């Protein structure tokens, strides 16, 4: 994975020094809250309901063991010994003091990490496929380009006060595990007929109040032109994006209002003026970054070693975990092991410092010192030998990290909601806990197969509810928590915005209603259909009838 050089290290150190000075000026009253707020937000610091919240970037979801240990230590030292992994490959700490934020960021910088641009109206931390570099279906490693973009966008002088936040995602696989079609810019790596690397460029996707699927404005952008082209898009947006209404300020609204063709025309015109920029001359830099992402020294590994086969036969819990939580690796004899942060009744995405330290040790011993964070709020050991799975599983079980539920009904995405978030209308986490308890039976959950439930506590949609197979959106009805249900969403290559099922359901009823919907699916499915397939075949009607039928 990428290693900081002296330039990168100086940059994060100088950034910490700058923010310390800004914090001091805020505490002294020299800076008003209005002046300070955008400065702290670009350093990942929010003021939430109970305290400051620090959102730490895990660039493109990749980190090493030492970095995860550092996160665990920061959570212990400056917070309450746990952290929350988010849908954007970030870690959030919920109980930070402003007067200690500089120290926390300094500790982070010591491990080559930062919280830069995890908030604010700037280019946010870039996300990528969490299976980058190990997926069998990969065209090229998206992290090389995500790192290039991370550096280019860091404190970009022209694009630090955009109309609104700006999110870029990169995927190297046609399967699109980075949800590129619901980002402000989605980049899909591909090769042209000559074998040259380039990108499909998708613009104007997003969730929030007006969910939209992004539009392709370039089928194939040659690799070398990536940064000038991004700069052209950002410049068009910075100048023409709406600033009169924050709900209409995202680039998706601009694309929607002027049309995809006009957007493409403006970007191409701007790009034509920009094409000679030194930014088009980054081949050496791409090669330098790529050298950190070369193939790891995988030793030979038996695809079906005896220790593994025996355990699989004798231990049904282990077998179920392997079936749901491990995935094929591009190298035979290896697998990708996903660690669910969704124990039954737990808080989706939360991990204690002790758990982080245990997982870091696993990565060091069994996964080439490398970990991933998924946008589904789980962790991944990306390079695991089949023969090591039993030992890994035992450690996970001891840490209560062995939930065999990846992509199952219990693998719920939930934003912090009203328990922490200042913008929330309703709670998300307790609903996720109750649903996961209702479906605690592993056999039943495995029988229901792939079900993606996603919960947001307000229309900002941090829980990505629009693209959940079942999406729940918390709303406030006269002081009571209600939940709107959308069905049929998807964030994959077949990205779809879910459809509203009907009137919002009370908090008391919501778990029963989700159960009715899934029972309807179990009754109606044909063959190997997933929930989403059955929904697509039959439409909303049968689900609606069952969901709203009197008990």
């Amino acid at each position: 994975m990428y290693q900081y050089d002296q330039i990168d290290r100086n940059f994060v150190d100088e950034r910490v020094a700058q923010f310390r000075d800004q914090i001091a000026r805020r505490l002294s009253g020299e800076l008003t809250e209005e002046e300070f707020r955008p400065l702290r937000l670009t350093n990942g610091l929010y003021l939430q309901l109970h305290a400051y919240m620090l959102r730490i970037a895990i660039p493109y979801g990749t980190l090493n063991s030492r970095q995860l240990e550092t996160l665990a230590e920061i959570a212990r030292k400056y917070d309450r010994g746990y952290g929350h992994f988010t849908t954007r490959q970030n870690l959030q700490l919920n109980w930070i003091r402003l007067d200690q934020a500089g120290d926390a960021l300094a500790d982070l910088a010591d491990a080559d990490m930062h919280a830069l641009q995890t908030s604010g109206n700037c280019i946010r931390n870039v996300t990528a496929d969490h299976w980058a570099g190990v997926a069998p279906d990969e065209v090229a490693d998206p992290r090389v380009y995500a790192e290039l973009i991370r550096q280019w966008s860091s404190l970009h002088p022209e694009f630090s006060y955009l109309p609104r936040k700006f999110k870029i995602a990169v995927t190297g696989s046609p399967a699109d595990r980075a949800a590129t079609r619901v980002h402000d810019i989605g980049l899909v790596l591909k090769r042209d007929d000559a074998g040259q690397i380039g990108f499909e460029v998708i613009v104007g996707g997003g969730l929030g109040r007006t969910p939209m699927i992004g539009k392709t404005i370039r089928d194939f952008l040659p690799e070398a032109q990536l940064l000038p082209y991004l700069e052209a898009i950002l410049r068009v947006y910075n100048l023409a994006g709406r600033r009169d209404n924050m709900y209409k300020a995202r680039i998706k609204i601009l694309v929607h209002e002027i049309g995809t063709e006009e957007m493409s025309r403006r970007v191409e015109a701007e790009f034509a003026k920009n094409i000679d920029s030194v930014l088009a001359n980054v081949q050496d830099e791409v090669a330098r970054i790529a050298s950190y992402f070369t193939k790891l020294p995988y030793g030979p590994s038996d695809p079906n070693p005896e220790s593994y086969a025996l355990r699989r036969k004798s231990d049904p819990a282990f077998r179920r975990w392997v079936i749901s939580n491990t995935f094929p690796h591009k190298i035979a004899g290896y697998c990708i092991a996903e660690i669910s942060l969704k124990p039954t009744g737990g808080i989706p995405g939360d991990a204690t410092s002790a758990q982080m330290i245990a997982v870091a040790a696993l990565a060091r011993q069994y996964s080439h010192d490398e970990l991933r964070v998924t946008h589904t709020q789980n962790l991944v050991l990306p390079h695991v030998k089949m023969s090591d799975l039993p030992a890994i599983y035992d450690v996970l079980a001891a840490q209560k990290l062995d939930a065999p539920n990846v992509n199952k009904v219990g693998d719920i995405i939930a934003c912090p909601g009203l328990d922490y978030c200042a913008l929330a209308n309703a709670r998300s986490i307790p609903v996720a806990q109750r649903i996961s308890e209702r479906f605690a039976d592993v056999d039943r959950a495995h029988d229901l197969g792939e079900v993606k439930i996603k919960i947001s506590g307000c229309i900002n949609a941090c829980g990505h509810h629009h693209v959940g197979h079942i999406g729940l959106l918390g709303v406030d009805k006269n002081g009571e928590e209600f939940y709107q249900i959308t069905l049929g969403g998807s964030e994959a290559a077949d990205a779809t915005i879910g459809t509203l099922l009907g009137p919002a359901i009370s908090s008391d009823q919501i778990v029963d209603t989700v159960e009715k919907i899934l029972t309807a699916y179990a009754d109606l499915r044909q063959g190997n259909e997933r929930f989403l397939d059955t929904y697509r075949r039959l439409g909303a009607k049968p689900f609606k009838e069952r969901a709203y039928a009197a008990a």
Partner: protein
Amino acid sequence: MQSLTANRLDDGAVVYRTKLETWSRNVHDAAVFENDASAALEEAGSDVIRALVVGVELIDVTMTDTGTTPVSLREKIRAFGPTI
């Protein structure tokens, strides 16, 4: 009935305006304004300028056996912590 709440600048903690015009971490200490609270709101604003608190706002409260208690779920969560 209303009370005044804010977040403390240095640690972000939830605080309530007391009768003594100080800030308390405990909602039960909150001063209750039966009628017009705008004067108190303005008064509290000086602590914003002095960089002691941010986000001063009025919230609806009721009186219970234990003392002042917020009405809305959001303010209950601010007062008593996450429900999870």
